[in-house]
Every structure is written in C-alpha cells, then in structure tokens.
C-alpha cells in the first residue's frame, strides 16, 4: 500500500513540473503574440473602412436630378452606356480640385462616360440656398473644366444610397449596371493607370485581362 502510494505521488511529481513549466511559458507567449499584434496595429489606418456596397446593382431608388436636362435618370444613363465612371466631387472639396486634372485627362483620352455627382456639404432649406449650390458647382466646373455629365445631389440622397463617406470617390459601373469597383481616394494619373484602368479593361474583355490593349491606350 505504502509503495503504491509512493509510486503514485512520484508520478504526480514527475508530470507536474512539466505542466508548470508550460504554464510559466504560456503567459510570456501570449504577451509576445499580443505585443506583435498591437505593434502592427499601431500604424494601421483605422479611419479607412473598405466599401461594402460593391458587386451590387446601382440603386434604382435614387431620385436624382435628371442628367443635363436630357430627361434620363442615372440608372437609365448607366444602362445606355457600356461602362460608366461615377465620380463624386464637390466645389468645396480641395482633394477634388487636386484630382480634377486626372478626370479631365480621362475624359479627353478615353471614351468613357463619366457621371459627376455633385456632393452638397450644406443643408438646403430654401431655394436661394439651392440656387447658390448649383451656381457654385457650375462656376467650379467652368473654371476647372467639365468632364462630367453632372448630377446635382442637393439632398444627399445619392451619397447615402451609394454608401459614400466623403468626396472624392470614383466608382466603376459595368454594362449591366453593377458596381464593380470603388476607389474612395483622390485619383492620380498613377492610380488611374494601375487601379482603375485594369478593372475597366477586365470588364470590357469579360474577365480576361489583355495587357496589350492597356498599352495601346496609354500611347
């Protein structure tokens, strides 16, 4: 009996140090993993949230001012064109001014229809405020060039319906009216060539990217 109990206690003592060592190392391991995780998180841009409203049909429920008095709704416009760029801009927005030369370049070099949704940053409760907003937008386009088919979004319906967090943003819609890509940053010639153009080529070629065509386009 005595022997048996001794053996048992010996076994217990033999396994315990191993478990204890493991338990001793475990907190350190956990802390190291956490430190690495938090350290990586330090430089992370938490204000950028990737857009969710992608690969979905362009909302039909938006009641927008008709494009250039043509009577077309945005949805109809998109369906009548093959691939459409939608650019959200505002006369009050500095980064929109910075990306505007790129938009002008795109409209003159590539035959892609561009809808410009004019983001309104001020509340509108009377007609003079509405007129001021329209006038300022038009002046801005006259001064900086107008590559768009302009849509005035005075009530911000389109901005919220599209899930937009700020101007500028560029959205690509394919021939079926489905939002294929969103670029919620100011567009530069580089980002146009590297980010937007490949997506457009991909849509045009039916998911088969042909790098030759993009090269021709560049020249």
């Amino acid at each position, binding site marked *: 009996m005595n022997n048996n109990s001794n053996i048992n206690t010996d076994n217990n003592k033999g396994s315990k140090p191993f478990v204890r060592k493991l338990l001793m190392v475990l907190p350190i391991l956990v802390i190291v993993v956490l430190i690495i995780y938090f350290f990586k998180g330090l430089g992370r841009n938490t204000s950028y*949230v990737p857009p969710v409203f992608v690969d979905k049909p362009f909302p039909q429920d938006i009641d927008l001012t008709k494009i250039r008095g043509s009577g077309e709704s945005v949805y109809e416009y998109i369906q009548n064109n093959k691939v459409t760029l939608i650019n959200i801009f505002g006369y009050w927005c500095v980064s929109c001014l910075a990306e505007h030369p790129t938009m002008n370049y795109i409209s003159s070099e590539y035959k892609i229809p561009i809808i410009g949704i004019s983001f*309104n940053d001020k509340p509108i409760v009377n007609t003079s405020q509405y007129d001021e907003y329209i006038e300022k937008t038009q002046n801005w386009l006259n001064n900086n060039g107008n590559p768009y088919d302009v849509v005035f979004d005075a*009530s911000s319906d389109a901005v*919220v319906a599209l899930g937009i*967090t700020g101007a500028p943003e560029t959205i690509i819609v394919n021939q079926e009216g489905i939002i294929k890509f969103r670029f919620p940053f100011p567009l530069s010639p580089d980002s146009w060539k590297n980010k937007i153009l490949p997506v457009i080529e991909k849509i045009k070629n039916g998911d088969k990217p042909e790098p030759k065509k993009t090269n021709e386009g560049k020249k």
Partner: protein
Amino acid sequence: MNKYMRIICVLFGLVLFNFTINNAYANPPKKPNKHVTSLMENIFPDEKQEREVRKIFEQVRCVVCQNESINESQANIALSMRNVIRKMYLAKKSEQEILDFLESRYGAFILLKPPVNKVTYVLWFSPVFILLIGILLLMRHLRQSYDESEYNTVENDIDYTADLSVEKQEKLQKILKLIKT
C-alpha cells in the same frame, strides 16, 4: 470555505463596481440638448416624431467622427444622413428598415451596436468565455494548494514518526487521539 467566500465577495464587488461605472457612462445625466442641431436642419415640429427619429440617429455611427453617433456629429455627411433618415421616416419606413438600408450601403460598421451574428460571436461572447476560464483556473488553483497543504502534513507525520521507537510511536498516537477527541 472562508477563502472561497472571500474570493466570491471580491468578484461580486468587482462586478458591481464595473456595473455602476458602466451605468454612469452609458446613462450620463441628461443634458437639455445633446443633439447638435444645425440651424438649417428641418427638425420635426412634432415632439414624438423628433424623439423617435433621434432614437434612430443614436444608433448610427458617423463615418467621419467614428465614435460619435450622427445624433451628435457636426460633420456634413452626418447631416446628410440625418436628412435622408428623416425623409425615410416620413415615408413611414420602420426603424429596422432604415437601419437595414444603411447597413446594406455602409456595412455593419455603420451601426454603433454591432449585430449578433456568426461573424461577431467572438466579439460578443469572448469576454464571458475568458471570465469562465479565469474562474475555472482560480478554483483549480485554490483546490490544488489546499490539497497540497493537507498532503504535506501527512507526509511530514510519516517521516518524523518512522525514526521513533515503537513505544514512542504508541505514545504519540495516544496523544493524537486525545487531541482529535
């Protein structure tokens, strides 16, 4: 037992403390007007409607000042969203319909209180899980240390009495019996 009681008391105290603190932050003394009202905003003349629509605003995160609800935010996009929600509210959309619409366009991020679903199970239930693990470990540790101290006294008895003569061992047993009774 005493030890357990003490620990349970401490845990209970901590939970109570946490609860009161949380409550103080979650329900701060009501300020007369928490809502940042733009002078240009079309506030509903009907008080009940205004209260209901602000209840929706409070649940929606401002995409610019990300820890504020659009009820408090002064950002332009928050104003835009408030106006759109007001319009939907007047069109007799329910609170859930409005929140679902916003979630479909901005993602679950737009809701200040994340929904409970497969993706957020970890977020919602990991604190409870970790607390349970902690309690289990604590209980195991306490039981172990209690058991060990008992074994130690027994082992010591054996070690010491083994060296004693038979007479002395009998004497010791008698004394021990006396003590026990």
